[in-house]
C-alpha cells in the first residue's frame, strides 16, 4: 500500500512551518521529522518502508491519522446533509426600501438590482415589525441570544419605527429571560445628536457605509442631483465616533474600479476620522459595468491588503488593536477552524425581512419576488429554503472541490453569484485567485501570531464565543 500527500495548504509564519488541513480546517505546526515525511511524499508516492527511511513510525502514524498523508485510496468528505431545523439567530430588518442617496452602484437600486419593489410598501409599519420580532423569537427557540440588524434603504429614514422595535424586542427578551442586541447600517446623512445619543444609550452597533476621503467617497455616494454626500456626513461621522461610546463604530467601504486606494482610504477613515474598524469589499456587479474591478485591479487591491495585513501583524505582536476588520474576521474563522457547508448564514441562522414582511435569504435579496422564501406571518416555505440551501451547498460546487480555501469561502456570496451568473449556487469564480491569495496572507499572519504572541489569539476565542 502506498502513501501520498493528503489535502492541505502549507504555509509559514514567524519562521515556523504550518499546515492548513482541508477540508477539516485544522492548523498544525510541523517539526523536522514530520516535514521530512512531507518532503519525501512531495516527490511522489512511497511505500511504508520508503517512508520509514525518512522518519519514524510514530510520526507517520500521526500524519496519517490527522489525514495529512493518506494511503492511495482517497478519503471521501463525509456528506453533510442539510439541517432540518436550524434555529434563527439574526434578523436583518429593512425598515424601508427608500433612500435619500442615489449611489450608482447600489445593489438595491442600481443596474444590477434584484429587487422588485413595485406595489410593495415603502416603509415597514409597526404591525409587520412586531410580527417580525415575534417570528425571530419563535424561530430562535433554543438559543439564548438573538440579534437584530436594522437596514434599508436608508435605515434612519424610518427611525421612529426603529425605536419602537427596540422597545418591543427588549421587552420580549426580558419576558423570556433571553438576550438581544442590535446594530444598524446607515449612510450617516441623517444622524443627529439626539439619534446618536439614543444609539449610544441603547448600545446599538453602527456601521457607516463610507468609501474613503471626499474624492473617493463622492464618486458614487451621491444625492439624486449628483452632488456628493461626503461634506454632509463628515461632521456627523465625527460626532458619532465622539459621542457613541458603547460599541465600536465601523466603516464599510465599497471598492470600485475608480476607488481602489485601500491604503489611503484606510488611513483616512482610521486616522483622520477615527473609526474603530474598517472593512472593505469590492462592489457587487455584473462584469461589464464600468465600475466593476477587473483582475488587474484585484491584484492591486490584494497587494494593498497585504500591506495593511502586515501592519495588523505588527500590532498583534505588540498586543495592540488594529482596525482592519478583513483580517480580524478571517483570523477569527481560522482560529475556530470553521469548515463551512455554506458561504454564510443566509437562510440558515440569518434572514432578511422587507418592509412588506416578506422573508428573504438575506438583506440583499429583500423585496425580490424571485428570492422570497416566505412571510413573517406564515413562516418560511421549506421547499424554497431547501432549494436555496441545496444550490449553495459546497458539495454541489464542483469547481470548489480541489480548492484549499473552500472551508472558509464555500463558493462565496449567494447574491454576488446571482448577479454574476444568474444562479445563487454558482461559485464566484471571478474571485478564486483573490480569495486564495487573501486566505494565504491571513494564514501566514495567523501562524506568525501563533508562534510569537499566542496570547493574542485569545481575543478570537472570546469573540466567537460571544457570537
Amino acid at each position, binding site marked *: 500500500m502506498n502513501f501520498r500527500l493528503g489535502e492541505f495548504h502549507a504555509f509559514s509564519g514567524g519562521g515556523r512551518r504550518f499546515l492548513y488541513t482541508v477540508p477539516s*480546517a485544522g492548523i498544525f505546526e510541523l517539526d523536522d521529522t514530520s516535514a521530512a515525511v512531507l518532503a519525501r511524499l512531495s516527490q511522489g508516492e512511497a511505500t511504508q518502508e520508503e517512508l520509514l527511511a525518512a522518519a519514524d513510525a510514530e510520526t507517520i502514524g500521526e500524519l496519517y491519522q490527522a489525514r495529512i498523508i493518506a494511503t492511495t485510496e482517497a478519503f471521501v468528505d463525509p456528506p453533510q446533509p442539510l439541517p432540518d431545523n436550524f434555529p434563527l439567530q439574526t434578523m436583518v430588518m429593512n425598515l424601508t426600501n427608500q433612500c435619500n442617496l442615489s449611489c450608482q452602484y447600489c445593489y438595491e437600486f442600481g443596474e444590477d438590482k434584484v429587487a422588485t419593489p413595485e406595489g410593495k410598501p415603502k416603509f415597514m409599519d409597526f404591525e409587520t415589525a412586531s410580527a417580525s420580532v415575534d417570528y425571530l423569537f419563535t424561530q430562535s427557540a433554543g438559543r439564548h441570544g438573538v440579534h437584530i440588524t436594522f437596514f434599508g434603504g436608508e435605515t434612519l429614514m424610518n427611525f421612529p419605527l426603529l425605536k419602537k422595535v427596540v422597545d418591543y424586542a427588549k421587552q420580549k427578551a426580558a419576558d423570556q429571560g433571553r438576550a438581544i442586541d442590535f446594530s444598524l447600517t446607515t449612510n450617516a446623512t441623517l444622524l443627529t445628536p439626539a439619534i446618536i445619543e439614543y444609539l449610544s444609550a441603547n448600545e446599538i452597533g453602527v456601521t457607516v457605509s463610507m468609501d474613503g476621503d471626499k474624492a473617493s467617497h463622492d464618486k458614487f455616494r451621491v444625492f439624486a442631483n449628483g452632488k456628493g454626500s461626503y461634506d454632509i456626513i463628515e461632521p456627523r461621522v465625527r460626532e458619532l465616533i465622539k459621542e457613541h461610546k458603547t460599541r465600536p463604530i465601523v466603516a464599510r467601504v465599497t471598492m470600485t474600479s475608480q476607488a481602489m486606494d485601500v491604503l489611503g482610504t484606510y488611513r483616512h477613515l482610521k486616522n483622520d476620522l477615527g473609526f474603530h474598524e474598517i472593512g472593505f469589499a469590492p462592489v457587487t456587479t455584473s462584469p461589464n459595468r464600468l465600475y466593476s474591478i477587473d483582475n488587474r485591479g484585484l491584484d492591486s487591491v490584494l497587494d494593498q491588503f497585504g500591506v495593511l495585513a502586515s501592519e495588523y501583524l505588527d500590532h498583534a505582536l505588540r498586543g495592540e488593536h488594529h482596525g482592519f476588520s478583513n483580517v480580524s474576521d478571517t483570523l477569527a474563522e481560522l482560529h475556530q477552524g470553521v469548515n463551512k457547508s455554506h458561504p454564510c448564514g443566509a437562510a440558515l441562522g440569518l434572514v432578511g425581512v422587507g418592509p412588506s414582511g416578506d422573508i428573504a435569504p438575506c438583506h440583499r435579496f429583500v423585496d425580490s419576488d424571485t428570492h422570497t422564501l416566505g412571510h413573517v406571518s406564515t413562516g418560511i416555505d421549506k421547499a424554497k429554503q431547501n432549494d436555496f440551501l441545496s444550490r449553495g451547498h459546497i458539495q454541489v460546487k464542483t469547481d470548489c472541490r480541489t480548492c484549499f480555501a473552500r472551508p472558509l469561502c464555500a463558493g462565496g456570496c449567494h447574491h454576488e453569484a446571482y448577479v454574476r451568473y444568474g444562479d445563487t449556487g454558482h461559485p464566484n469564480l471571478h474571485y478564486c485567485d483573490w480569495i486564495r491569495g487573501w486566505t494565504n496572507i491571513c494564514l501566514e499572519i495567523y501562524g506568525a501570531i*501563533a508562534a510569537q504572541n499566542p496570547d493574542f489569539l485569545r481575543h478570537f476565542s472570546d469573540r466567537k464565543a460571544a457570537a
Partner: protein
Amino acid sequence: MKHLRAVNHKARRIQEHIENDVVAMQGPPTPAGQRPHVPMGCSIVFSPGWEVDSSGGTAGLCQPVERDLYDCYISCYWPAQVPDHMNNYPDWTAKCAAATKDWRNIDLVFP
C-alpha cells in the same frame, strides 16, 4: 501527538479524536509503532472478523478461532455458514456446553 502541534481549535479537536479513538478499527494498516499494545497471542474481541493477533495472524491466539463458528451460530447477526439447527441438525452443538472449553466437541456436518 509529538510531531504535530495542534494550533487552532479544530486542530485540537482532531488531536483529541486521534488520541481517544480506537486505533485498531481505523482501516488501512498503520505503522507498527502506532498500533495499540496487544501481547502476541491475544485476541481482544470475540466477534467474527476480528479474531487476529497483533501481527494479523491466527496461529497464537489464546482463544481458538474455531469458537467463532459457534459465536456466529448462537449470538451473531453475521450470516455465517453454520449448520441449520432448526430442521436438519438440531444436535450439532449438543456436546458443546462452553465454547471456549468444549469447542472441539462441535460436530462436523457434511450436508
